[in-house]
């Protein structure tokens, strides 16, 4: 059964979007002459452009559908992913880490590892990031086709190939610049296309407080039920939320994942680069006004027998991801339906473009130029970036078909994230703030962190060990286990890096200038008037973050 029917005007809106972004790719190609233009968008973006792209690279359609469905299952606890699971890390990146990233004029996160540590650490991270990015890209492509097939009734192959070819065309033409342009367009389409669901839902129910009043009490609280895992739907304690999600997973993703950090590298100067994640943090805090309200709304409506609202079911099992599409079908007349579907499509395709543009950069600089062809000219690297784009899309499509034939690989998605990002955050933190950390310490710390994360995942999945050994509680959801596994992987990487560094040769101080705290000239940091300083906006963001947590405590 499909949820949403399309009219001619809906098709016109969807086709206009496809034509528009391909046209944009051709327009931007005129301005893509050098490798810097292709891989770093010419380093000409303002903090607003880079900031909205930074946020949008993460704001995919799968996340919107999944988090709305999770809110239906877990309630307000899902807001932790947007607040404590994002904001502190984004502010930390902008205030403390960005000067080290940006001052080195590096082109990628593995590029920083090369300067701070050595080539082998860079290649290890380059390969693991490239592998993770292509897997995620392919699985997202599969999920997109599945969503469009389920909710709109589109042919699986046609929707996958149409979006893959469109992304391949515009990213090949103009690289990161076109990826960033489409991410910003996606940002506006998502807000205009989906926020109306929340508005109409509030109008139907009466008020936001009435929605909160009608859901179970534990579903409307953020922290007050986190002391006892049996009292909240996510079955997680505040310790798991703070250490696993708020610290390791969040900092690991937002401060080291090249997919998002690349947007800050495209900023025109250091101040704009520092402002990039800080501006994004304000909008990140606002996303729950789409997903949380929609999820709670779906819950309230489904409990009311007179509403006529129900989630879709697949073979008797509730499809939680259908919450948002079912609300679109409930409220949106023709025209608006086209906008809602286009918003989801834009989310999918911009996410795909983000993955591919990050992959082509890491492949070209950190694998091809570093390992295969060290003498490549800038013109050759630009060519290689375009080849990597097409190859990346083809591998993504192949991965999507693989996922289709073996849907269980979807279960490995979370494992992939904590496998790469959680240990890398320990490496980055020590690398940027402790000057005696050595190249061998970083390399073996990363190996230990990545290996232990993967081993813990397999041990729990195949029941070689009890989950409670990792989570410190007798009950725990898969999500709680993910939080805790990330924490342990981070800790193992952190400890091994320190221990190995104590016994191995460190780099001379003069090679670390600009890369490590204490060896960076403070004069390099700009000091504008107080109300233009990134720190001022970071404090403002932090105040809003604290108020939101207190209000929904």
């Amino acid at each position, binding site marked *: 059964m499909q949820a949403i029917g399309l009219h001619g*005007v809906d098709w*016109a*809106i969807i086709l*206009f*979007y496809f034509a*528009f972004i391909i046209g*944009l790719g051709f327009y*931007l190609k*005129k*301005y893509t*002459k*050098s490798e810097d*233009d292709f891989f770093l968008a*010419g380093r*000409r973006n303002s903090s607003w*452009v880079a900031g909205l792209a930074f946020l949008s690279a993460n704001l995919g359609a799968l996340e919107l559908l999944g988090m709305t469905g999770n809110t239906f299952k877990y309630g307000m606890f899902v807001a932790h992913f947007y607040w404590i699971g994002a904001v502190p890390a984004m502010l930390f990146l902008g205030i403390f880490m960005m000067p080290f990233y940006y001052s080195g004029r590096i082109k990628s996160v593995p590029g920083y590892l090369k300067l701070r540590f050595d080539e082998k650490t860079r290649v290890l991270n380059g390969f693991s990031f490239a592998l993770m990015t292509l897997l995620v890209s392919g699985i997202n492509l599969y999920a997109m086709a599945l969503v469009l097939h389920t909710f709109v009734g589109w042919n699986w192959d046609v929707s996958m190939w149409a979006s893959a070819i469109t992304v391949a065309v515009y990213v090949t033409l103009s690289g990161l610049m076109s990826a*960033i*342009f489409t991410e*910003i*367009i996606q940002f*506006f*389409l998502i807000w*205009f296309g989906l926020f*109306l669901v929340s508005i*109409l839902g509030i*109008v*139907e129910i009466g008020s936001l407080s009435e929605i909160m009043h009608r859901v179970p009490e534990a579903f409307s609280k953020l922290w007050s039920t986190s002391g006892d895992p049996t009292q909240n739907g996510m079955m997680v304690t505040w310790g798991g939320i703070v250490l696993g999600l708020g610290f390791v997973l969040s900092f690991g993703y937002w401060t080291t994942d090249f997919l998002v950090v690349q947007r800050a590298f495209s900023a025109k100067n250091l101040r704009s680069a520092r402002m990039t994640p800080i501006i994004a943090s304000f909008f990140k805090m606002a996303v729950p006004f789409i997903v949380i309200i929609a999820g709670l709304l779906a819950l309230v409506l489904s409990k009311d027998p007179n509403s006529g609202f129900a989630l879709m079911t697949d073979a008797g099992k509730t499809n939680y991801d259908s919450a948002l599409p079912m609300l679109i*079908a*409930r*409220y*949106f*007349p*023709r*025209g*608006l339906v*086209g*906008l809602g579907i*286009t918003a989801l499509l834009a989310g999918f395709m911009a996410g795909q473009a983000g993955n591919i543009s990050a992959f082509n950069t890491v492949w070209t600089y950190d694998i091809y130029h570093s390992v295969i062809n060290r003498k490549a000219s800038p013109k050759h690297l630009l060519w290689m970036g375009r080849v990597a784009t097409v190859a990346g899309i083809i591998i993504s499509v192949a991965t999507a078909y693989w996922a289709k034939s073996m849907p269980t690989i979807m279960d490995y998605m979370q494992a992939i994230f904590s496998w790469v990002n959680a240990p890398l955050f320990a490496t980055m933190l020590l690398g940027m703030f402790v000057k005696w950390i050595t190249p061998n310490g970083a390399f073996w710390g990363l190996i230990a962190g990545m290996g232990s994360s993967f081993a813990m995942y397999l041990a729990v999945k195949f029941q070689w060990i009890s989950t409670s050994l990792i989570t410190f509680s007798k009950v725990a959801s898969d999500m709680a286990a993910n939080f805790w596994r990330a924490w342990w992987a981070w800790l193992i990487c952190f400890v091994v890096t320190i221990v190995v560094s104590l016994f191995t040769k460190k780099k001379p101080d003069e090679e670390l200038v600009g890369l490590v705290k204490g060896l960076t000239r403070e004069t390099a940091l700009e000091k504008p008037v107080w109300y233009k300083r990134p720190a001022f906006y970071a404090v403002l963001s932090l105040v809003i973050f604290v108020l939101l947590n207190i209000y929904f405590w």
Partner: protein
Amino acid sequence: MATNVKKMKPIWFFVGVILQVMGGLIFGISLYDWIAGVESRTVLANLHPGVWWGGLMSLAGFVFELKNINASIE
């Protein structure tokens, strides 16, 4: 930048174009449905959300376009 002699329009201009065209389409069809009395089975259809939301989108797009029609970036 020496390689980019011709100046590029900022992204905000293109945001304006896409919002105006999509908003205009939604506003137009929703207004037609309202005037022609086309029946809609959606909840709150009596509020004609397509008319005011499409209108708002179109207006926002127009403002983005107007502010950036002559703007360019290096």
